[in-house]
């Protein structure tokens, strides 16, 4: 596939460490506290998540950022809405966060996401592992990329990067 041209894009890797897990890693050119803030505060989440192009937005983004607190997220994409929700289990700002995640159409298939942010040469490394209740559920989640991945264009991202370069 074509490179996106966005900084650190090549550091992003997805793997399947076991039959029931998906693992992500990526570097970001910002300190851990800023990455934590961007990933956990609704006003920020709405800005980057909803910035994938026409038809993408985040109409609902509720975050009660404390242990036992709930979160809920609706990702609007050109083919409809995808709703996710869960509960925070561990919060260790800005280094580590553990939460449960449910994709609304499959309420019995709860996954547990463990994400860590560590400083690496002035940048931040994100490591996130999602653990699913079974291989079947994990595979189902992986296969959702089939429908969404191909549909998005990079045009919007290119626009944003050009804009940033001009500044």
């Amino acid at each position, binding site marked *: *596939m074509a490179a*996106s041209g*966005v*900084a*650190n*894009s090549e550091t*992003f*890797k*997805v*793997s*399947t460490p076991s039959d029931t897990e*998906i693992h*992500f890693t*990526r570097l*970001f*050119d*910002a300190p851990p*506290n*800023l*990455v934590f*803030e*961007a*990933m956990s505060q609704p006003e*920020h989440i709405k*800005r*980057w*998540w909803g*910035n*994938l192009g026409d038809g993408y937005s985040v109409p609902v983004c509720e975050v009660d950022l404390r242990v036992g607190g709930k979160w809920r997220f609706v990702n609007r994409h050109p083919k409809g809405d995808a709703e996710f929700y869960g509960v925070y289990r561990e919060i260790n700002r800005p280094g580590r966060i553990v939460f449960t995640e449910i994709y609304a*159409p*499959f309420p*019995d298939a709860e996954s547990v996401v463990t994400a860590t942010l560590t400083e690496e040469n002035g940048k931040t490394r*994100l490591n996130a592992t999602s653990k699913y209740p*079974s*291989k*079947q*559920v994990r*595979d*189902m*989640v*992986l*296969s*959702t*990329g*089939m*429908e*969404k*991945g*191909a549909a*998005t264009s*990079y045009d919007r*991202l290119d626009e*944003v*990067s050009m804009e*940033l370069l001009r*500044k």
Partner: protein
Amino acid sequence: MADQLSTTFAALADPTRRAILARLASGECSVTELAAPFEMSMPAVSKHLRVLERAGLIARGREAQWRPCRLEAAPLKQVAEWTEQYRQMWEQHFDSLELYLQQMKAKEKKHGGKRRGK
């Protein structure tokens, strides 16, 4: 392709059907054997099996009486391909985050890092 996937998702969405698949992962067996762990009538189990069969997740033997069920791995064997598509989807989200972080950093600098006071 999308239709096959929808059928596979729908079939996998039910916990009993996932349990049936898990049981079949350890080898083929008869409908009676499959029904044993579930508090469910044979017709109910047969109905689940028909859904799984239509989704291409299991195959039934041709032997008239016994008709053993076995797992058909093909629909579940696309993990490598899926992972790549999944990676592409998330790559866009994280690229978007990276760009947004640069905006946040620029804004902080402008405001003299007041909020984080270094």
